[in-house]
């Protein structure tokens, strides 16, 4: 039992980043409820509501995004089979985490109803909220588990966006959306069936492969041995990996999935839940794309260590090489955003967002993220703080833009402020690279057997 509870706790906190996000979410939840208690009867409660919702989203994301991948990581080592009931304890722990998450969401909504009865309320029962949250989170976790061993992780990411948005719109705390709750018993039965089927496979599987973060096929990599690789290309491969074709394929799948969501949303009326869900899925895509250069450049300082002697480059030259790589990724991301926004503009006849401004905002966020990533040279702690800050700032900017009914001067100024920020960050990043200490800044490694002592 103790092992199961420890697995549950780990689901909310297995990576330092998620731990911080969960703590931030809890703090925001508390602040939101306090705000509601103080201001619900009189003044506007918009800000407090947003904090509650954001915090719920953060906590939900922290658990559902991570659990599937983490679970696969710790299920992969064969030594787990030597632990008595090891897989069963893992399964039970993860399931309890999901039940707890759904309870937290339902409790949050119940509290909201008590604190702000005057605001528009979602008409569904607490049971429907609980089951909706459980079903959404379970689907995401199981999808992530199953797909993180394959190159089709992009589909899982899109599914997260879609399911998360569905879940969000079902909870519908800040928006007076029409209720679209499906038949609850059916949803509950489907969730139970999914868990049972998964458990039957999981407990009997002879071998579970660890998550695959890139291509497992060496088609493009094989060329490296057979064809002469130029020094710059070799440096690029050392820094960001060997298989750009697999990455492009994954990006293509991601874009295709987002376009499918857009098509799905376009078939409904402007005021429908679907339309909002589509907008939210789009915002998720934009967020992922806008932090893409950060995700690439944040690891470069550590990985460039292997090139210090081999490439002959100085620290300053390595900074420039990494910066160029970051810009290349930024352009790829911006092109994807341009493509999706253009398709959204064509496919969705009633967009509630300004495509041009969003594109500019994403590019500005990308530039900022690129240099924040390059600044991550002081070890894991600072990197994690920067990761959280980047995700929160990016998400907040995009949400403000997407939810705003009119383009106020403040909203229009966001990309400009971000670009100015990026301009200021570049010299700081460059300065940090001049004194880069590879004893402190090491390549990050994935945890693989974190649970062995727990079990």
């Amino acid at each position, binding site marked *: 039992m103790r092992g199961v509870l420890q697995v549950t706790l780990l689901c909310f906190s297995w990576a330092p980043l998620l731990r911080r996000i969960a703590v931030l979410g809890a703090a925001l939840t508390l602040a939101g409820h306090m705000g509601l208690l103080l201001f619900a009867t009189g003044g506007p409660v918009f800000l407090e509501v947003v904090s509650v919702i954001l915090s719920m989203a953060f906590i939900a994301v922290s658990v559902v995004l991570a659990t599937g991948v983490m679970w696969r990581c710790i299920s992969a080592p064969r030594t787990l089979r030597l632990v008595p009931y090891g897989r069963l304890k893992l399964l039970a722990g993860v399931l309890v985490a999901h039940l707890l998450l759904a309870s937290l969401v339902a409790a949050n909504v119940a509290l909201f109803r008590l604190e702000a009865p005057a605001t528009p309320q979602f008409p569904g029962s607490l049971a429907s909220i609980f089951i909706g949250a459980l079903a959404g989170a379970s689907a995401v976790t199981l999808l992530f588990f199953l797909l993180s061993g394959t190159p089709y992780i992009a589909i899982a990411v899109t599914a997260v966006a879609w399911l998360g948005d569905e879940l969000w719109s079902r909870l519908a705390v800040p928006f007076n959306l029409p209720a679209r709750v499906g038949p609850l018993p059916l949803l509950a039965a489907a969730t139970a069936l999914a868990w049972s089927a998964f458990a039957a496979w999981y407990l009997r599987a002879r071998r579970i492969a660890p998550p695959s973060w890139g291509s497992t096929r060496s088609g493009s990599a094989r060329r490296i041995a057979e064809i002469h690789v130029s020094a710059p290309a070799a440096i690029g491969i050392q820094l960001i990996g060997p298989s750009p074709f697999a990455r492009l394929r994954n990006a293509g799948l991601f874009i295709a999935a987002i376009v499918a969501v857009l098509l799905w949303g376009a078939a409904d009326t402007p005021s429908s839940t679907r339309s909002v869900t589509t907008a939210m899925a789009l915002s998720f895509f934009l967020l992922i794309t806008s932090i893409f250069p950060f995700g690439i450049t944040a690891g470069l300082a550590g990985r460039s260590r292997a090139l210090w002697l081999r490439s*002959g480059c100085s620290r300053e030259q390595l900074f420039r090489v990494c910066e160029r790589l970051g810009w290349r990724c930024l352009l790829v991301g911006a092109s994807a955003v341009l493509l999706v926004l253009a398709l959204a503009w064509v496919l969705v006849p009633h967009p509630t967002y300004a495509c041009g401004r969003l594109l500019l905002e994403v590019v500005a966020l990308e530039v900022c993220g690129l240099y924040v990533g390059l600044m991550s040279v002081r070890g894991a702690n600072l990197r994690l703080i920067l990761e959280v800050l980047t995700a929160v700032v990016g998400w907040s900017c995009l949400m403000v833009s997407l939810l705003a009914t009119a383009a106020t001067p403040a909203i229009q100024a966001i990309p400009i402020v971000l670009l100015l920020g990026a301009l200021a960050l570049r010299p700081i990043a460059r300065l940090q690279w001049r004194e880069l200490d590879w004893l402190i800044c090491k390549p990050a490694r994935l945890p693989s057997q974190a649970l062995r002592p727990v079990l």
Partner: protein
Amino acid sequence: MSDAVVSASHLGKAIQGNAILRDISVNATAGNVVGVIGKNGAGKTTLLELLLGFSPPTSGSSTLFGHPSLTLPASIKQRIGFVPQQDELVSYITGAQQLALTGSLYPHWNRALIDRLSRTWEVPLGQRTETLSAGERQKLSTLLALGHEPQLLVLDEPVSSLDPIARRQFLQQLLEIATDESRTVLFSTHIVSDLERVANQIWIVREGAIVWHGDLDSLKESVVRVSIRAHTTLPDSLGIMNALTCRADATRATVVVSDWHADAAGDLARRLDADIEVENLSLEDIFVELHA
């Protein structure tokens, strides 16, 4: 400019206020195999990484081929091969591809040497790097450091994951490299028998400081175990200079002494009215005594 290939002067490093290395001054010249020995956490890896310019020192300075480590030009870096303690292999590519990648970064790459060594060491070059065992990864990392035939080869615990046969082969290869008098090999280990087999110079690191550096033979000659059998009761203090450890009872004592001179035995016998027996120690015994 000095003829030292590797030189450190009062080198120190502190991370977040913790002193990792303190006031290290050492040199290594061409044609030598220098073994860096010390307990886990003594500072061996930090020392090697500071010497190679991976990390700026908190105090002092170091040079490689006369150039400051932190700002090594490309021409000097091409003369250095390094095998890190934790390999830096790229995932999702095969060993052969990793070799091709690294080879493309150097103007000179001895493919014949690499082919020969990979066959001798039985490195499965067709397998993806993440599927290799720890020992195979270590061998592959060593191949990556040898392909450009460096004049300075720095290896950070290169044999820790190898089986005894592979270790012997590897050390044999190291000896072959070292017979070329233009080359210098600097390697850290805590397997003393390996070091004894190949190194001719030794740096002993303890708690971030070099406690002994010089020829291996002179170390073995200068550190001895002195057995004392007195005819009367021994005094509380034996008054032996440079005593590293001392175990004594009423009439018998065993003392490990550094910087021992043969003349000292006669003086000691007269002073303590005792029979003195002096015994040379193996490197492993010396290492243990120095850390006692």
